[in-house]
C-alpha cells in the first residue's frame, strides 16, 4: 500500500469522512490482500469495501461457494477462478476430479451480477456454461481460459455470437474439441471491439476468410494469436491489415516459402513497428524465422518453446538479436553455448524458461542444457528474477554461484530430468546448492527442487525461505523431519505439493492448524496412510481432505479399508463451505 494512503488510514480520522470519500480512497487499493486487510478493520469499512469491490480472485474454487461470493460482493465485475490442483497439469489428477464452472455461471446469472471479466485456470468448462455466460451478462468483455477443458468450438461460437462488447478472448493451452465449425463466422459484423484474440490451441482448421474479415474490422486489436492452420500467406494478409499489433502468435511454417511469399511476409512484418511480443511457431523453417529480423530488436517477449524441430544454431542466431527481450521461453536445444550467447546479448532478461525438447531422453540427446548454461545466464543477466529450467544435471558449485550472482530471484524452478540425480562431480546431494539459493534470495516466493536431496535441504528452506509461498517437491527427503522443517519454518507458505517422497503421518499431523494458513497441500506416492488422513479430517473440520484412489473407477470399499494402507494421492484445502457434492467415485472426502 502506498505510504500516503496508509498514513491517512488511521481510523479515528477516517470515521469523520463520508462513505463516498472512503470508497474513493479504497479505489486506489487494488491488491486483493490489501483489500482483504481493509475489510477487517471495522464493520463500516467492511461494508464499504464489499460494495466497492469489483475484482475477486479465488485461488481454489472449492474454498467458497458462488452464492456466498455474490452475497458478499454484489458489485462484482471481474472474477478469477482456479480449479484443479497444479499437478493436474502432469496427469496426476483424474479427469473427472472436479472444478466445474457451471455452478458459478448459474449463480452469477441468477444473482444478476454484472460480470465483465472471467479468468479461469484448470477448470472444467462446458459448452452449456459458455452459452449461459454469453447470454447472461450484457457487459461481458473478457474471457481468459488457461489449461481448461470440457468444451468445444460450439461454446466459442456462442461467446462470439452473443457477447456484443467482447474485447478479449484468450485461450491458453486448453483442450478444446474442435468441431471445425464456423465459430469465427459467429462474430457479428457489428463486432469491432476486439482487443485480444488468442486461439492458438485449437487443433482444427480455421476459416481464414472469416478471420481476415474479423481482424480487418477490429481497429483496436492489439493481440492476435492464431493456430497451426493459418498458413504463411494468410498471416501476411492478417499482419498487413493489423500493423498496430503489439502481440503476435503465429502458426506452423515447416516448409520453406516461395520467394515472393517470403518477400510479402517480410514487408508486412516491417510495418508492425509496435510489435513487442512474439509466440506460436509450433514449427518453423529457419528461413521463416529470419523474416522477423526487422522487428526482433523491439521484442520484449519471445516464445519459441514449441518449435521442436528448430535446431539450436538457428535459434541462437535469432535470439541474439533480441537485445531487449525481457521474457524468453525456449527449448533446451539452444544448449549451454546458446545460453552463453543469450547471457551476453540479452541484458534486459527478467524471466527465462528452458523446456526439454526431449522429455524422456528418447533420442539420447546431448544438446540438453546443464549447469553451465544456468551459471552463464545468472552472470550475464542482472535483472533476472524468474526461472524455470529443465536440465540434464546440476552441481552445488553452480547453484552457489547462481545464488551469488542473482540474489533477486522471486521464482526459482529447477527440474533435473532424472529424479534423484546427485551432483555429477562430487556425487553428493544438492542440499548445499539449494540452501545457497534460499539463503541469498530473500524475496523468493516460489521454489521447485529436484535432484538428489536429503532432509537437510528442507532444513535450509525452513530456515531461510521467509517469503516462500509455493514449494514443489519430488523424489526428495529422507524422513518426516524434512516436511516438518518446511511446515514449521515457512510462515508465508500457501501451497505445498509433494510427490514420491518419504513423508508420512507424523509430518502430516504435527501441526494441523498450519493448514488453515495455507491454500492447499498435495501429497502423492508418499508415506501417509488412510488412518493418518482420517485423523487429520477429524481434527480439522474446516479442511476438505480428499483421497484420490488409484483405481479410478471404484469407490473405496468400506469393509476393505485398512487404516495402515498408504494413500496414493492426498489433496487437502481449507474451505468455508464444507464437503463438496460434485466429487466423482474415485475421490473420497473424509
Amino acid at each position, binding site marked *: 500500500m502506498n505510504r500516503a494512503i496508509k498514513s491517512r488510514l488511521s481510523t479515528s480520522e477516517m470515521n469523520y469522512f463520508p462513505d463516498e470519500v472512503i470508497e474513493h480512497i479504497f479505489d486506489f487499493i487494488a491488491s486483493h490482500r490489501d483489500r482483504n486487510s481493509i475489510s477487517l478493520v471495522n464493520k463500516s469499512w467492511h461494508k464499504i469495501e464489499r460494495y466497492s469491490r469489483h475484482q475477486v480472485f479465488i485461488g481454489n474454487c472449492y474454498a467458497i461457494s458462488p452464492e456466498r461470493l455474490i452475497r458478499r460482493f454484489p458489485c462484482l465485475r471481474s472474477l478469477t477462478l482456479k480449479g484443479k490442483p497444479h499437478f493436474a497439469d502432469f496427469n496426476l489428477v483424474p479427469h473427472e476430479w472436479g472444478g466445474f464452472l457451471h455452478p458459478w455461471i448459474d449463480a452469477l446469472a441468477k444473482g444478476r451480477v454484472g460480470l465483465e471479466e472471467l479468468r479461469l485456470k484448470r477448470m472444467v468448462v462446458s459448452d452449456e456454461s459458455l452459452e449461459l455466460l454469453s447470454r447472461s451478462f450484457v457487459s461481458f468483455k473478457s474471457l481468459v481460459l488457461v489449461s481448461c477443458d470440457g468444451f468445444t468450438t460450439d461454446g466459442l461460437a456462442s461467446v462470439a455470437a452473443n457477447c456484443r462488447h467482447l474485447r478479449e478472448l484468450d485461450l491458453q493451452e486448453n483442450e478444446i474439441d474442435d468441431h471445425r465449425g464456423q465459430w469465427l463466422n459467429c462474430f457479428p459484423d457489428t463486432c469491432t471491439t476486439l482487443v485480444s484474440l488468442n486461439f492458438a*490451441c485449437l487443433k482444427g482448421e480455421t476459416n481464414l476468410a472469416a478471420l481476415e474479415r474479423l481482424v480487418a474490422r477490429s481497429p483496436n486489436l492489439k493481440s492476435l494469436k492464431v493456430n497451426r492452420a493459418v498458413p504463411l500467406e494468410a498471416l501476411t494478409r492478417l499482419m498487413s491489415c493489423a500493423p498496430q499489433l503489439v502481440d503476435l502468435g503465429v502458426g506452423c511454417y515447416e516448409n520453406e516459402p516461395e520467394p515472393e511469399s517470403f518477400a510479402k511476409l517480410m514487408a508486412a512484418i516491417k510495418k508492425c513497428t509496435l510489435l513487442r511480443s512474439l509466440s506460436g511457431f509450433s514449427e518453423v523453417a529457419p528461413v521463416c524465422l529470419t523474416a522477423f529480423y526487422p522487428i526482433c530488436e523491439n521484442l520484449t517477449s519471445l516464445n519459441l518453446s514449441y518449435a521442436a524441430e528448430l535446431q539450436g544454431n538457428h535459434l541462437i542466431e535469432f535470439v541474439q538479436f533480441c537485445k531487449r527481450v525481457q521474457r524468453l521461453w525456449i527449448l533446451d536445444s539452444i544448449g549451454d553455448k546458446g545460453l552463453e550467447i543469450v547471457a551476453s546479448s540479452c541484458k534486459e532478461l527478467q524471466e527465462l524458461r528452458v*523446456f526439454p525438447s526431449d522429455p524422456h531422453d528418447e533420442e539420447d540427446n546431448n544438446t540438453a542444457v546443464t549447469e553451465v548454461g544456468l551459471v552463464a545466464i545468472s552472470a550475464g543477466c542482472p535483472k533476472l528474477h524468474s526461472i524455470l529450467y529443465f536440465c540434464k544435471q546440476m552441481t552445488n558449485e553452480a547453484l552457489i554461484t547462481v545464488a551469488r550472482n542473482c540474489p533477486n530471484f522471486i521464482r526459482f524452478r529447477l527440474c533435473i530430468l*532424472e529424479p534423484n540425480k546427485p551432483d555429477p562431480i562430487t556425487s553428493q546431494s544438492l542440499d548445499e546448492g539449494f540452501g545457497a539459493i534460499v539463503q541469498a534470495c530473500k524475496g523468493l516466493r516460489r521454489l521447485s527442487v529436484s535432484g538428489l536431496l*536429503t532432509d537437510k535441504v528442507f532444513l535450509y528452506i525452513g530456515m531461510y525461505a521467509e517469503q516462500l509461498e509455493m514449494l514443489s517437491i519430488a523424489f526428495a*527427503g529422507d524422513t518426516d523431519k524434512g516436511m516438518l522443517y518446511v511446515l514449521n519454518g515457512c510462515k508465508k507458505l500457501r501451497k505445498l505439493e509433494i510427490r*514420491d517422497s518419504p513423508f508420512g503421518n507424523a509430518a502430516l499431523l504435527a501441526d494441523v492448524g498450519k493448514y488453515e494458513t495455507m491454500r492447499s497441500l498435495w501429497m502423492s*506416492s508418499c508415506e501417509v496412510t488412510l488412518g493418518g488422513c482420517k485423523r487429520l479430517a477429524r481434527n480439522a473440520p474446516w479442511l476438505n481432505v480428499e483421497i484420490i484412489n488409484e483405481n479410478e473407477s471404484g469407490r473405496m470399499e468400506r469393509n476393505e479399508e485398512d487404516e495402515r494402507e498408504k494413500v496414493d494421492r492426498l489433496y487437502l484445502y481449507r474451505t468455508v463451505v464444507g464437503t463438496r457434492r460434485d466429487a466423482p467415485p474415485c475421490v473420497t472426502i473424509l
Partner: protein
Amino acid sequence: MMGSVGLNLRETELCLGLTGGDTASPVTGTKRGFSETVDLKLNLNSEPESKEGSKSHDVVSAVFKEKSSCPKDPTKPLAKAQVVGWPPVRSYRKNVMGSCQKSSSSAETAAFVKVSMDGAPYLRKVDLKMYKSYDELSDALSNMFSSFTMGNNGGEEGMIDFMNERKVMDTVSSWDYVPSYEDKDGDWMLVGDVPWPMFVDTCKRLRLMKGSDAIGLAPRAMEKCKSTSLKLKD
C-alpha cells in the same frame, strides 16, 4: 575406456530376474519409489570420493535403458519414460511437441493398427499409411470382414460401406457395425470426424462396434442421425 573406470562391470550386466533386497543402500536409504528402482547395484550415491562419478553416470544411463526389462519393484517400472507425470511438463505441451516430432518421421514408418470386429473370432491388422482416404480404408475393411457380415444379413447388402456415416446410423439399432478408433489419449472416437492425415496420426486401434454398443460413443451424433433416419423412413 569404460573398463578403466574401476566399476565392477559384472554388476552392470543384464539381469533377468528381480535384483532382490541386496542392493547397497544409497545415502538416502529410506527413500521409496524411484531411487530404489534406479539404484540397483551401481553404488553411485554412496561413493562420494569417486571422481569417476560423472563417467559412471554415462554407464548408468546406458545400462539404465537395458535394465528396463527387470524392474526391482514390478509396479514401478525402471524406464524413465514410465514415471507418471515426470518430467513435470504440461500434457498440452507434450502433445504439441509429440505431434510435431511424429510428423517428421511419419514418412518413414508404417502405421499398423489392430482392427477388431465385434463377434469376429480374430483380429486383423492394417497399415493406415497404405490408404489415402477414409473411403479407401472403408473398402479395405469391408473386404477383410466381408465373410463375417455376409452371414448376418443373408448377403443382401454385400460389402457394407462402413464410412458412410448416414447409412450406418440409419440402422444403428440393428446389427450393423459402427467404426470406432482409440486415439492417442486412450479415448474411443467415432471414425470420420477429423481430416484423414490427422486420423492416421492419432489412431492407435480400430474397432468395428455392434450398432447397439455404439450408443454411448457419440451420443449427440447418434441422436442427430437417429432422428434423420426416422425422417427418412417416412
